[in-house]
């Protein structure tokens, strides 16, 4: 019998947990799981294990949570697992060369974009904001640079008009699991072919910042709509009405023209709250008032709270 492929898995959030589940379903031997240290979460700031750790514990796989790989102890521990390959998905820790070289066949990364487009931390949301027609998964042989390694496998999915950060994330998480299982099968048959990225085509997907989600009404309605979609479920676009924060969960851009000052509420009905933008008009269909949960415009009107009133000008940030 030949030795089974020994896999180390490294990842932290839900996106990574999908991939780990796919590897477990395909009966790969996962010798260890690396994930970021538990972070305070929820009320009372209790230390909560992330989704990857929970899954690993359920399958009694050893879990390692080094802060980084700066000390020799952590690096040696990784080498001691004598893995054939390490699969990395949204791990959130920069891996030094010593770590990349530890597994016999190096480290494979599951990246949620069609590289070299959207290297970096937030490829899913950046693709939506840019109005990309498609996204996908790239399996890449990791190098020391930021998502610069040779590409081994790609799968594509169209981005539809009603995709949000959540729907695209969930679809790509599923595809990521399928892609890595396929890549490992090809790896075992020595049939993975590496293709270098064309660095001159690279774009960078910077990490999401909460402040980016503040709506600038002087922007075109279509761009604001894409940001609202991309930032759902996090950080969620918001605006201010008389100092009160209003979060916007869903909207559509209409080509209506308006000469009103950007940020002006033009219409308030059970269907939508329409706001003038720098270009075009935004129809808000789902919003959240301070201390409340996301509601429809019908609930806004029935709720009777004196917010988002007709003629009101929402803060504009530019």
């Amino acid at each position, binding site marked *: *019998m*030949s*030795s*089974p*492929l020994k896999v180390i898995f490294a990842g932290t959030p839900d996106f990574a947990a999908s991939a780990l589940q796919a590897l477990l379903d*395909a*009966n*790969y*031997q996962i010798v260890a799981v690396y994930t970021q240290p538990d972070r305070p979460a929820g009320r009372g700031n209790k230390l909560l294990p992330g989704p990857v750790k929970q899954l690993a514990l359920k399958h009694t796989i050893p879990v390692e949570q080094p802060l980084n790989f700066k000390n020799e102890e952590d690096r040696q521990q990784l080498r001691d697992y*004598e893995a054939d390959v390490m699969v990395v998905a949204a791990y959130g820790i920069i891996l030094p060369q010593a770590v990349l070289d530890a597994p016999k066949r190096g480290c494979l990364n599951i990246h949620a974009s069609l590289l070299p487009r959207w290297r970096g931390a937030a490829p899913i949301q950046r693709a939506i904001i840019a109005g990309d027609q498609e996204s996908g998964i790239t399996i890449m042989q990791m190098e020391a640079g930021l998502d610069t390694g040779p590409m081994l496998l790609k799968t594509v999915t169209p981005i539809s008009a009603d995709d949000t950060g959540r729907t695209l994330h969930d679809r790509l998480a599923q595809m990521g699991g399928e892609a890595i299982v396929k890549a490992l*099968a090809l790896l*075992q*048959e*020595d049939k993975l072919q590496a293709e270098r990225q064309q660095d001159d085509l690279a774009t960078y997907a910077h990490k999401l910042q909460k402040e980016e989600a503040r709506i600038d009404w002087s922007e075109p309605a279509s761009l604001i709509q894409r940001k609202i979609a991309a930032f759902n479920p996090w950080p969620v676009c918001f605006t201010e009405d008389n100092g009160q924060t209003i979060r916007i969960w869903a909207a559509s851009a209409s080509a209506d023209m308006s000469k009103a000052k950007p940020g002006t509420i033009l219409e308030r009905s059970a269907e939508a709250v329409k706001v003038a933008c720098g270009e075009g008009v935004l129809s808000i269909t789902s919003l959240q008032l301070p201390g409340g949960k996301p509601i429809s415009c019908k609930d806004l009107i029935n709720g009777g709270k004196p917010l988002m009133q007709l003629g009101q000008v929402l803060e504009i940030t530019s």
Partner: protein
Amino acid sequence: MSKLQILEFPDPRLRTVAKPVQTFDAALGQLIDDMFETMYEAPGIGLAATQVDVHKRIVVIDVSEDKSEPMVFINPDIEVLDGDPEEMQEGCLSVPGFYESVTRIPHVKIRAQDRNGESYEMEARGLLAVCLQHEVDHLNGKLYVDYLSNVKRTRIRKKLEKQHKMRA
């Protein structure tokens, strides 16, 4: 010590049912040593004599990380014990480059003889139990691909035949 040639699926010689070992002599010791060398070199965790075209009931196994637990099973008699069936990715030195899920109960009792002909018994679980079943199958002319669907087995056979042609 010398490295032996490993037969590859679909070689018909892999379908031979091996005969019990009667004589425990120096030649047998030499064969066992050569089988270990061949297995470690491959690299593998188990090898049956059938795979090196010797049709005697001999299996060598080492499932340790550091080649520190060589085990010899001569005339093995295997009994699968109670337990939950588990799927595991199996690969075989006679089916190089392919790995497929096979369901087995990873809990066995085995009676066998060592290289001096001494009888012994042991219970095994996990990878060792799976490996023992895989190797004893070889002695009976059976391969892990026999547990797969016809479609998968045919695909593997065709790919390997193509490789053999290219090497010939």
